[in-house]
């Protein structure tokens, strides 16, 4: 079984900081972020890859970190919700979420913010339909999505 390993060294940069750890091959990226790196902003809401609460940016691409192994992130640059604001200053997108009451319990919010961030980087002036399509992989049980869509729309005018 040469070439295979049950745990591997991983070097991953998250929000600009590089971490080096030995990680079991079977560990999911979301658990690596939450349990090993203490970055608890990304959340777990399901066990079938449907809810999107674990969404992060991996080398600029929006992914669900519950469907990636931590070892697959070796060498990658990850952005999580903790990396959006600096020194506690909310970004225009975050402020728009607050202004439009686009969060209630806040559990889906980190994933929503990452999905909206990915959208706005690729498409700075999305239509409402494009916003909804971009958020399709993020479930929310509190808001019904209407205010979240409004918040993203309003953030594009900023």
């Amino acid at each position, binding site marked *: 079984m040469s070439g295979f390993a049950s745990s591997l060294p991983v070097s991953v940069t998250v929000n600009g900081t590089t971490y080096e750890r030995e990680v*079991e091959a*079977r*560990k999911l990226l979301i*658990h690596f972020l*939450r349990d090993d790196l203490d*970055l*608890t*902003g*990304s*959340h*777990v*809401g*399901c*066990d*079938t890859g*449907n*809810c999107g609460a674990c969404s992060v940016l991996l080398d600029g691409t929006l992914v669900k970190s519950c469907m990636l192994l931590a070892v697959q992130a070796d060498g990658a640059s990850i952005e*999580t*919700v*903790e990396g*959006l*604001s600096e020194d*506690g200053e*909310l970004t225009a997108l*975050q402020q728009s*979420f*607050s*202004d*439009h*009451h686009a*969060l*209630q*319990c*806040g*559990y*889906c*919010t*980190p994933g929503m*913010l990452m999905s909206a961030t990915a959208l706005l980087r690729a498409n700075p002036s999305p239509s*409402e*339909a494009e*916003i*909804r*399509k971009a*958020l*399709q*992989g*993020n*479930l*929310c*049980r*509190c*808001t*019904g*999505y*209407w*205010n*979240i*869509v*409004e918040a993203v729309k309003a953030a594009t005018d900023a």
Partner: protein
Amino acid sequence: MSSSTTVAPSPVQAPQKGWAGQSVPRKEDKRLLQGEGVFVDDVKRHGMGYVHFVRSPYAHAHITRIDVSEAEAVEGVYGTLTGEEVAALTDPFFQIAGAPGGQIKDYSLAVGKVRYVGEAVVAVVAETRELARDASELVEVDYEPLPALVDARKALDADAPVLHDDAGGNLMWHGSYEWGDLDAAFAEADRVVRIEELHFHRFNSTPLECDGALVEYNRGVGQWTIHTNNQFPGFAAIMMGPAMRVGLDRLRFVTQDIGGGFGNKITSHPQLVVCCLLARKLGRPIQWTEWRTDFHLSMSHGNERWFHDTEVAVRSDGTLLGFRTKALDDAGAWLRYEPLGGVIWAQVTPGMYRWRHIRVDFTQVATNKAPVSPNRGYSRMQHLWFTERVIDIVAHELGLDPVEVRKRNYIRAEEMPYETPNGCVYDSGDYARMLDLALELVGHGEIETRRAEAAARGRLLGVGIGSTLDSGTNNFGQSRLINPELQFSGNNEVATVKLDIFGEIVVTLGTTPQGQGHETTAAQVVADILRCSPDDVHVRAGHDSYWNSHAGFSGTYASQFAVTGLSAVKGATEMLAGEIKRLASAVFGGVPVEALELADGGVRIKGSPEAFLPFMACGAIVNANNAGLPEDLDVTLNCRYVYRPPFQVPDVERKFGNLTLTYAAQIHAAVIEVDPETGWYELVDYAAVDDCGSRINPQIVEGQVMGATAQAIGAAMHEVFEYDEDGNLLTPNFYDYHVPHALDMPPLATGAIESPSPFTPLGTKGMGEGGGAGIHAVCAAVQDALRGHGDAIVWDSCNPYRRVWEMLEHPERSRALVSVT
């Protein structure tokens, strides 16, 4: 697909308008938006052990053998807990019911028998999550399978499998409710509409965060600290303390941010007991994360209820005189918060309607399914769905306009406060006006034009109305209608408001918010009384038993915070305001209290702004500089207030009395288009109108209305906990249990009116659970769409595409359920 709302985010107005009524930005947002919320799985302790539950693969079976030795031998496994140990260490949970349901023995792990797929049998604790999961596969459990009971309608058959021998059968509770004169009503009726069977389905609100806990045991003082997201610690404590044979003060509950509750996080006490026992046994903190599949299998399904042999007495002009029905409630395998569902529906016995002659025969049975527990709208939603179905079916069968039938029969604004046939008092409301607003928002006037246009595209258009009440602030005395031996009544909530040594205003609540913005609305109420800004008011996040800011009923459930929580805040703040003035009076040399006012962050003599004592000075004097104060000055600036709503114990014999203090209302209108070839349909327009009395923060209220609407849409169209005949749950995760996403939502228009409650200190009413109106509206819309295409009757609250298609293909099946004489 845009939405229009009545509530735009508003820049805060000048203080002289008052903070109540303004959409003040939420204090909670800053931390949540930065991923700095503290949810229970974020809490870590050195050396904590992760617990994994071994769960039953059978719906019904004897446990013949458990062997944990192989699991415990694995390096990194800290220990296990079995039902046998639980039965030795704890007493069965207190049962709300009397005999027969009250005789069942409910422990926190299965003892001797399993009664639903997913029931927890053994707990395994290990160094890592993965290891606990692995080790659980080494636990050996032998079962002797038994026949499973899955259909509540068969639960009382002579040959039905019996879940609890201690109860002697599957009957858990039965009660008959009757008010008015049914014989007279049916004699007077011109028509009688009979509906053989209606079914409210099993689902819940699937909060995105599942249950969880981190439990620590302090051996020296025998104290457990339970970090959790249980949303009703008052109830959990009452259940856990006696079971664990410890005083309630040994159980400290700590919550901060909770990822949604909707009632589904009320009955986690069994798992919490397991964690407490393990923390003590293993001498280390115990961490429990519930995964989505665990939650679907084992937690908090909403009450599934059948309504059989319904008869409705109607006059030809559409006046509804009364009804009788037999309600059959499927409680699942255990009674956790049940059988309270057997009386809670009676808060809204007549729905929104004026009929006076009502009989409900209520039976609750056990089945081999997950135990039910409150789900948003708890028990009222089921009953209100029933009344709305009755209205629509009566209108449908008698060829009447469902709008006209509602208006003819709605309780009228001028009749408020209105006493229902069973003595509940609807405090205020104007249902007809709300209905008009909902119809206008959804473009009801143009519906026939739209119907024709849709038909040209091969689509069947339907419009439906759903009206619902959101009864809030329970009188727990209603529990005596379930079991006269119970010693519960009334309700309460607690708040403390204090000035710290530097004049900081600090508030603690007894509640456990899951996104309702309690920190923000509490600050608004405080700011209005102390004449400062909500930014000056620090409200502690979450709940902690150590704050001593809670009472027996503390928690966040049952649509009551705006009444109980905020009234407690009001009371505590008014106490504080009074103390501040008495202190200032003394400091100013005896100036009368009436000559003082609070303003600008302090207290001053009216008309003499130089005579001003800032809050900072007040706090400093009382806390650190109190020599020379008058001996009889009874001022601490640390005020604790318990709000107690005005209730009497209900009359148990007549089943009569006020069961809830406030009655918010929601009226929804839904427009759908059906593809008759497939039964597929979508919502093309939607309106939701809300009345929850005085709104402290309109944006937060509207957010609740929107969220509940989305949940109702999901429940009406897709979401169901469906079992096969062997008791296997067919929708155990989000792959098969479809929660709607952003593309599934219709355009939404919202409206609101405010009918203040005459019974509450702030004129507020609790709200948040009225979204069930969406289920009623979608059902009505489906039935309307099928009018003239077989005229099927919608008889189930969940109508996925396959059911709509079946109604199109075989309308005779549902039509056979209805007859008119």
